[in-house]
Structures are given as structure tokens and as C-alpha cells.
């Protein structure tokens, strides 16, 4: 999928993701406000559920395809589909294509793939927004979510964050390492997953940031849960929430 | 014998037959694998010396400086092949000199000179071949190995050296002294091959 070939109009469909649906309504709200500030007209298809990634990652591709077929139907049309999660976006533009490689409805899946954007990637590389107004006086550690490797998302989110007044990005060690979430991996390999997460938190908290920020609530739910359990002071925050707060100071 | 061969080839062919298309051979752009710091107009000899020293190969241009170094290393028996009379007399001043390498002497000879087929500036490597370096053991077993590199045979890059590969059953690029990091990642030089690698540019 070449990035330039994806549609980037200001009339968009929002995929809120199942995690935001269940736990993180504040992140989905922030996403809406951020997109509206960017001048977008947002359609929220009511029948959306999940991208099917849990089943895909478990190897149950027939189950995952069932969910993806539903998703393809829900998000029909030509508008860009914007997702505030690197991993759900990657499921749409990469995973789905992989699991439908031998299916007859591959073209429909590819059509959705070719319209799908992770939020930061959409703002910067789709809409051409180069900086973000407002203030957010805090020190943050930015965790580049693994599913955004090889895409423009990580750099895009950092670019916007760094343009916000008062915000300081604190670098940390072994930044390329995964947080250990990995979906069902976190429950089928609980020891390995937590060990990875603790290591990540150690690196992150070494620089005493106020927040650990990412574009994926899945990583943040895991890191936040570990931090809370182990009494580490760092709080998780989606980058859209920072953009939203900055907007409020601006207005 | 031939059945194994036929078996393998037929499995390969039937594995590849269903592929709708096959990956074409990529064009390798000239200089594709060159490091960005490489300056094509650089002096090959100067670059070679810089890179060789960086990998732990000592470079000499003056035979007596090279002999002085061997003396400070307390070398006692040196193999200097063929007609290298000057080196023989320089080394003869402090060590026993032999002109052929014998297996029986493997524990006694602690330094050997061998002619090289060339060198690579980009990586600081010495090129040895069967043609240029008659005895593989002589260039490998002694603690000190000194390759005799001719200035005119230094290639600028790895790609250049590959393009000019001598027609020889055995070519080896030597980039620094023999080493290992197997024990706790700690670097130790001189595992099986030379612990001290040098070259004398002539």
C-alpha cells in the first residue's frame, strides 16, 4: 500500500476501536475533537464492532474473517477511515489483506485497506498538518507502538507533540523494544509479557516523565495496569488526549 | 547418487511451478553497498592504512620499522620466504630465520611473512590466495603474521575486490587479528589464527 495513494479528504469515517468502546471513551472523544479541529466532518458508523485482530493473532483466521467481513460492510464507501490505534489500523491495511489472500472477496478487503489511516499519520501525512497549537506543560515518554513500525505514524505523532508548547519529550533506553502486550499474548504468556512490560517501564521511568504516551491504547492499558499494580508514578495517555488538552488551552 | 539429485531438482521445480510470477533479479546500482563516508577519489593506500589500523591490523611501509616491532614482541623464530634478503637480514639480527614453513615447527615459529594477493581499502582487509600465498598454515598458525601487500594491488571497495577476484580455488580476506567474544561477550584476540596481524606495504 503506498501512502500517497490513500484518499485524504476531510470527510471521514471514524473507527473508534473496541478498546475505546469498552474502556477508553475519553480517547475516542479526544479523537473526535482533534479531527473536528482539523476541519473534518466525521461519520461514526453505529454498527462497528472490532477489527477482528484478536482472532487473527490467535490463528483462528476463519473467525477473524467473519469479523472483518462485517467490518468491511460497515465501513463501505470511499471516505478515508481513521483509527486512533496503530494496531487496529495495521489490521485494516495489512492483516486483513494477509488473511484474505486466498479469498474471493479480497478486492473488497483491499478497498477498505486502501482507505485506512492511523490518526497521526492521517493528520500529518494525509491532511498536511505540520504543527499543533496550544500548551501542554509536561514531560512525556513517547512509546512508538510496534504496529506502527515501517509506517509514518510514529514520526507524525512525535512531530505534532513536539510542536506543542511546554511539552518535553524525554528519551529512554531500548526504545525499539515492545511493551509486551501483544493481545492474547499477554494472557497466554503472562510471565514473559509482564517481564517485558516491567523492563519497558524501568526504561521509561528512568527519566521521570509525567506521562507515557502512545498511539495505541492496548500498549497503554498494559503499561498503565502494570505501573498501577507496581506503584510506579507514570500515567498513560493517548497522544490524541494531549492534542485535545492543548486545544483547550488554545481556545 | 543421481536419484537424490533428481529428487531434489524435481521437488524444487514442482515447488516453483505454481508461482504466478517470480521475483526478477534486482539491478544492483553501482556503489549501492558502499558506506556513505567513502570518498571515491580518496587515496587508496591512506584509506587502507586507516581502516586496517581500525580493525587491529598494524601497517608498516618501512621494513626496518616492521622488524623493530617484531623485536619488541620478543619473536624468536621467523619465517621469511623466498628472496626477501633485506627482511631476512633485519630479522636475523634478533631471531632465527627460516625460509620455508614446516609443520613440525608449528610451535616454534612465532612470526611469518607471506606475500598477499592484494588488499581492500574500504574494509582494511588483506587478500590472500593459494597463488600468492603458497602455504596457508604459514599465514595462520604463527602468533604474528605479516602480509606483504603491494601498493598497486589495493582495491578501493569490497565490490571492486569482488569484481577483480583472482581465478584461484581459495581466496581469503583477513580483516584484523583472529578473535572471539564467545566467553561472556568479552573480546579476546588470537583464538586459532594470529593474535597480532600486520602488513608491510611494498
Amino acid at each position, binding site marked *: 500500500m503506498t501512502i500517497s495513494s490513500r484518499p485524504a479528504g476531510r470527510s471521514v469515517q471514524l473507527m473508534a476501536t473496541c478498546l475505546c*468502546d469498552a474502556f477508553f*471513551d475519553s480517547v475516542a472523544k479526544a479523537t473526535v475533537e482533534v479531527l473536528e479541529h482539523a476541519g473534518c466532518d466525521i461519520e461514526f458508523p453505529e454498527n462497528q464492532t472490532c477489527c477482528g485482530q484478536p482472532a487473527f493473532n490467535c*490463528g483462528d483466521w476463519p473467525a477473524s474473517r467473519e*469479523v472483518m467481513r462485517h467490518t468491511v460492510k460497515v465501513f463501505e464507501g470511499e471516505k478515508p477511515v481513521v483509527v486512533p490505534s496503530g494496531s487496529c489500523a495495521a489490521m485494516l491495511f495489512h492483516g486483513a489483506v494477509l488473511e484474505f489472500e486466498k479469498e474471493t472477496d479480497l478486492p473488497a478487503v483491499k478497498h477498505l485497506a486502501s482507505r485506512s489511516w492511523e490518526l497521526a499519520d492521517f493528520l500529518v501525512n494525509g491532511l498536511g498538518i505540520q504543527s499543533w497549537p496550544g500548551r501542554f506543560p509536561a514531560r512525556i515518554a513517547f512509546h512508538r507502538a510496534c504496529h506502527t513500525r515501517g509506517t509514518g505514524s510514529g514520526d507524525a505523532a512525535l512531530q505534532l507533540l513536539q510542536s506543542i508548547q511546554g511539552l518535553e519529550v524525554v528519551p529512554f533506553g531500548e526504545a525499539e523494544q515492545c511493551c509486551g502486550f501483544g493481545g492474547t499474548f499477554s494472557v*497466554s504468556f503472562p510471565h514473559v509479557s509482564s517481564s517485558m512490560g516491567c523492563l519497558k517501564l524501568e526504561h521509561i521511568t528512568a527519566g521521570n516523565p509525567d506521562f507515557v504516551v502512545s498511539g495505541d491504547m492496548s500498549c497503554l492499558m498494559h503499561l498503565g495496569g502494570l505501573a498501577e499494580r507496581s506503584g510506579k508514578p507514570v500515567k498513560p495517555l493517548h497522544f490524541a488526549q494531549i492534542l485535545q488538552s492543548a486545544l483547550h488551552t488554545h481556545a | 547418487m543421481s536419484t537424490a539429485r533428481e529428487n531434489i531438482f524435481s521437488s524444487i521445480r514442482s515447488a516453483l511451478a505454481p508461482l504466478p510470477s517470480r*521475483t526478477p533479479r534486482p539491478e544492483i546500482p553501482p556503489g549501492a553497498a558502499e558506506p556513505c563516508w567513502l570518498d571515491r577519489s580518496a587515496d587508496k593506500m591512506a584509506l587502507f592504512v586507516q581502516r586496517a589500523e581500525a580493525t587491529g591490523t598494524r601497517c608498516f611501509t618501512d621494513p626496518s620499522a616492521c622488524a623493530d616491532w617484531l623485536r619488541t614482541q620478543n619473536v624468536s623464530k621467523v619465517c621469511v620466504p623466498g628472496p626477501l634478503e633485506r627482511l631476512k637480514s633485519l630479522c636475523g639480527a634478533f631471531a632465527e630465520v627460516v625460509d620455508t614453513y614446516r609443520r613440525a615447527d608449528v610451535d616454534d615459529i612465532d612470526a611469518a611473512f607471506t606475500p598477499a594477493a592484494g588488499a581492500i581499502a574500504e574494509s582494511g582487509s588483506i587478500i590472500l590466495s593459494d597463488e600468492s600465498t603458497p602455504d596457508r598454515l604459514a599465514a595462520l598458525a604463527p602468533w604474528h603474521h605479516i602480509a606483504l601487500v603491494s601498493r598497486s594491488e589495493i582495491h578501493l571497495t569490497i565490490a571492486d575486490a569482488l569484481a577483480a577476484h583472482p581465478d584461484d580455488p581459495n581466496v581469503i580476506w583477513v580483516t584484523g587479528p583472529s578473535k572471539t567474544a*564467545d566467553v561472556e561477550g568479552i573480546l579476546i584476540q588470537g583464538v586459532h589464527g594470529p593474535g597480532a596481524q600486520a602488513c608491510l606495504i611494498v
Partner: protein
Amino acid sequence: MPEQKVELFARRLDPGVQKAVHDNSAAGTLKRYSILGGDYDTPDELRRLAGQIRQHSIEHLDTYLEQAEKSLHRHGAHVHFAVTAEDACQAVSGILERAGARKVVKSKSMISEEIHLNDHLATRGIESVETDLGEYIIQIDGDHPSHIVKPIIHKNRRDIARSFEREGLGDYNDDPETITRRARSFMRRKYLEADAGITGANFVSAESGRLVLVTNEGNSRFCLAAPRVHIALVGIEKVIPSDADLAVLLNLLGRSATGQQLTVYTEFINGPALTGRPSGPREMHVIFVDNRRSEILASDCREILRCIRCGACLNVCPVYRQASGHAYRSVYPGPVGAVLSPLLAGKKFKELADLPKASSLCGACNEVCPVDIPIPDLLLKLRNRGHEEHAPSPGTPPMGAFAMLASSPLLWRAAMQGSRAMNLVPLDKLPLPYLQPWLKTRTLPEWRGGSFRRWMKSRHSR
């Protein structure tokens, strides 16, 4: 609940070993990163080019293998083919027996591990000594390598000193330099006594027939200097079109494996030594081994055959760093092993079908792979195959109910709303087997199912 095998192994791993594996791997990742980034403006472009060279090579394997065979013949080497591991072992011992060879020195080769060559030679009464320092220690300990480039990453100097003492290589001494010197003088004798040297090959150039061997210690060079017979065991997938391709591949291999521009010794061999030379083999045999590689070529995971065994994916892998190599229960550990090992297992695929699951799918392996293998995609395909073949997968939640829910929007919305009840009960008391492992080390945020939907609706009705 039954546990995943890699998880169990990691949980029981000695913390000292885990730390050693982690630190050594992390150092390797850092070295690779700084030399590649320092030397190339766009290392990813070079990786993609190398990936295409290798993909092209394996997709034209019939042509190039035949060409390599001809080139080797032309230079006086004998070429053999072996379909199975067993055939390959037989080929080696046959050559040795015909040559009257009783003593063999071996340089590190993954394929010889794969076919269990040393065990086979021992049954034939042939002495075979591993000459790579790490592999030698593995051999005397009756152990298995836990990393494809750093075989004893799981051992410390004290372990090694004890093994050397036991083998009569001197009194206990754990100084790495002393250990190395002792190995040096011990190996000297072995090289000089040996009748044959066995090596692998990192690449084979079809055009010239040259086998390329890279090492740092110089042991493979010694195996090709002292003995009179050279046997090279080579996986059929190692062929590349020509010497020119090596400029790309060698520049990536050293940097990816050990953070070096080139390893110390890079050797090119396409025949026995020149006649009349005092050292070097009189006979050269190349055994091309299939051992299921053609089966992998036929599968939808053929990209794994691009692998040049650099070990970068092991170093960067967070699961490998936690679990170490033995957790993978096979010759190839880490991400490459999680793909390759179940494929090489053939009918025993199910026994290793858990390996592709031992990954958070973070993709770091693909990012460092010098030949750009899409390892996460291959892991996913193998998970799907494991599911189709009903391979056991402890701890993996069944997905049927989820799929049903997630494709029925009404039910989904009801579940989102209804699960709010979760906030009212102590979660750690709930009999949900897949929730408890999560809660052991983490908290779960408050369930707010449906809140966003309501907010969205209220905005629209405003």
C-alpha cells in the same frame, strides 16, 4: 491452566542466565544499529535490495543450484546431493570412509547441528571435534547452542572453567584469555592430526561455484589448511546468482551479526588447493542438503529461506531475551527459529506449533533482518496452520464467541453496556480463566462500555 512451553521455560530460567542473554543480546542490537546507521544513509533500502536478491535466488533455485554444481565440477570439486538429514550424514561418513579418514575437525555449521552429524560420526567411530570455541564448549558439555551466532550466550566463564577442568585442559581458571589460550593449544593438535575438515557455507555463488565462509576465530581457515579432505555441508537455499551480489550481502551480514563491517576471515573456495602446495585439502566435496527446504519452498512461508543466519532477529527479540534459546527446543531459536523449526519438523509440525505463538508480533525482527523477511506475517500464517491442524495451544482463548459477538452489532452493543456489571464485582474472584493471568500483574481500567456511543449520539442530536 496448562502453560505454553516457552512461557514455562522462561519462568523457570535462572535469573543470572536471563540477564546474561538479555544484556548480550541488547549489546548486539546496539552495535548493529550504530554501525548500519553510521555507514548508510538508507540502510533499509539496502536491506530491501538484499531481500530481493535472496528472494530472486530461491525462486530460481533450480537454475542456480544446477549452475553452482557445474561451476564446482569445473574447478575439481565433487558435488553430492542429500534429500534427508540421514542421507546427508551417510554422505559425510561415506566420503570419510572412502578417504580413510578417522579424525575430523569441524567448523561451526548450523546445518550439521540440524542433521545431528556429530552423533552419527560417533557411531561410525569417527572422532569429530568442534573447533569454534563456543561450539567446542557445547560439545564437551553435551549441550545445545542457544544462539545461532553466539552458541554459549547462556554460559558464564565459571561454567566454562569448570568444563575445561573436567576435560583435562588445565586447572580451574575462569579468565577468558586463559580459556582462549588453552583452547588454542588444544585445537592446534587436533587440526594437525585431522584427516578431514568439515565446514558449512554462508553463500554459494552459482556463477563461480565459490563457497563463502565467514568466521572471526579463524577456525574454518584452519580446517581448510591442515587436513587433506574438505567436506562442505550446504543447504540448497544458500545459492546466489553471482559474486557481485556478495557486495550487498557481505556488507549486511557482518554488520547485522556482530556489528563488524566484515568478519575477520571471509573465505572463498571453489575447489581443492592448488597442486604442489604444502597445505590445503587435496579433495573437496560439497554436499547440498535439502532436508525439507524444497517443502518450505512449496509453502507460503518460503520467504524464510532468504535467511542468512545473522542472528540479528534473536538479539532484538524481547521474547528471546526473556526465554533464551533452549526454550525453542530446536536448532534454530528466536524469531527465525519460531518460523523455521516447525517447518523443518515436517510431520512433527504440531510438536513445535507453539513456537509461532511465542511472540508479541512486535515486528522488531523484520525491522532488523538484513534480508527483510516478513517474520511476523510468517508467524501468523503458521498460527493459522496450527489452528487448522488442531495443534494444542494452552492459554489461547477460543475465538468463536468473540467472532459471533463482533459480527452482530446489536449483541455487541448490548454486551458493551451489560458488561458494566464487571465494575461492581471483585474481578480477581471471577471464574474467567483468561482474565486472571492479566490481573496477576496488572490492574484493569473501569469498564465504560457504550459511553462513547452515547456521547457521540448526544452531540448529533444537539
